[in-house]
């Protein structure tokens, strides 16, 4: 059973502001869902390797050139609601 402290910790890691009601509700739902995952303990995985991806591809390379036919950096910057300054997005001060 996930504690309130654990829920708050997860929410902070995930950068999610939750109300007290949400913490309680999600806490109960998450506990149930994670409890279901215990079924995987049945499987003997001692000699098994992890699968991260199923393509078998590795180190797929490409030329380091910009493809501007679809869109430009400035068009992409224009998507932001925050102020743009010298082709950069201005955000709140992080290091005080």
């Amino acid at each position: 059973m996930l504690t309130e402290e654990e829920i708050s910790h997860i929410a902070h890691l995930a950068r999610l502001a939750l109300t007290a009601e949400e913490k309680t509700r999600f806490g109960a739902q998450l506990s149930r869902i994670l409890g279901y995952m215990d079924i995987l303990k049945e499987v003997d995985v001692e000699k098994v390797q992890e699968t991260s991806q199923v393509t078998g591809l590795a180190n797929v390379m490409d030329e380091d050139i910009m493809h501007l036919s679809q869109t430009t950096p400035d068009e992409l910057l224009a998507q932001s609601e925050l102020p743009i300054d010298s082709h950069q997005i201005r955000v709140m001060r992080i290091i005080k």
Partner: protein
Amino acid sequence: MAELSALSIVEAAKGLSARDFSAEDLANACIAEIGRRDGEIGAYVYVDEEGALSAARAVDQRRAKGEELSMLAGIPLGVKDLFNTRGVRTTCCSEIIRDFVPPYDAEVVGRLRELGAVCVGKTNMDEFACGASTEHSCFGVTKNPYDLSRVAGGSSGGSAAAVAANMCFYALGTDTGGSIRQPASLCGVYGFKPTYGRVSRSGVTAMASSWDTVGPFTRSVEDMALVMETISGHSRFDQTTPEKAVPSYLSVLGKEVKGLKIGLPKEYFGEGIEEETATVVRAAAEKLEKAGAEVREVSLPSTKYAVAVYYITMPAELSANLARFDGVRFGSKTSAEAENMVDFYAQTRGEGFGDEIKRRIMIGTYVLSAGYYDAYYKRAQKVRTVIIQDFERVFAEVDVLIAPVSPFPAFKIGELVDDPLAMYMADALAIPASAAGLPAFACPAGRSSLGLPIGLQIIAPQFGEERCFHVGSALERMS
């Protein structure tokens, strides 16, 4: 008008070629059908009438000049709102990017547009593709055209319903753990989940990057083969697409099934599967047997672990992919004042994401966090390998597998939405093929006693789409 929008792609293409009607006529037919039916179905979140007519007229002009055109030129399609469409609002059905207008097309959309495809609108989906019912959209529920009190399935419910109700000729969706196949089955249309890496995902918002696939919905096997041939292939913008040639899927249609070995995995017909569903799917396999195929029972013992594997690894990947939605580069920012950037992010995301998204992000964050990574994420990745090995073993004995897609036909709206775990189990039969990156072709197989569509899936080894089309085409001929 209504008759025009009920045609297949191939029939419409022939009609365009013969000048029986124009691309503009086809676009108008779909727009009229949308006007007539979508008020009650809710398949579309945005209808681009102006854009569609403009694209249609452009195709008519190209044809008038004598240009040789693709069969898809002038054919209207619906696009799941997960795909970027240049200049047309793309929301992933989430509040957090509700007003986002992408400056570029998803690659498959761009490719289709170049050929003259007419994008008629964006279809409804579960937010960020997270769901099996299209009940988790910020725009409301998409209803099943066969019974408006029931779901269309998800997450690509809008695309499935739009095709089923003749509001477009085909549609694009994504399948990560069943999101094309399940709504296709529930709405009685064809849905193809390709081999992972067969179709470029560039410009499609990522959900779970090692599971996501892009695929079409159509009303016939021939239409599906045509669309799949067109959108498949290597892309420099999607590094998970290998440089493997795309065979001609159209050329395998109509072939005999004599001697083909078909496996029915017993775990897909047992406990938890509605009897009618199992009966309908077995009946389809029997038809193939009468036509000369060898049908035998096989076993995939790891099937019961698929939901747990998926609901650990997928949220983990999702949590990473959705980290970019923080109100900085795109999307809505928090409406309240924030004291610092961390609060800015937390508030933006707290306000913008729906409940199911928050749940999944939290599961993903938890299973990747220090102290839990080995027990959950690493273990799930290992069990994924076991699932893959089960399929490898079985495909040494048989050429394809046939199985139900969903344990049950369309459920009532609201029935599962308050029980997340019960909703997750809806994808129990779809997930394993996704775990192994295998192609799976969802085909209509029959109806329930209530008249609801029941679908089956034809699963083949990686890059074995031809086998899926071979069998799907045979089943279509026999129905």
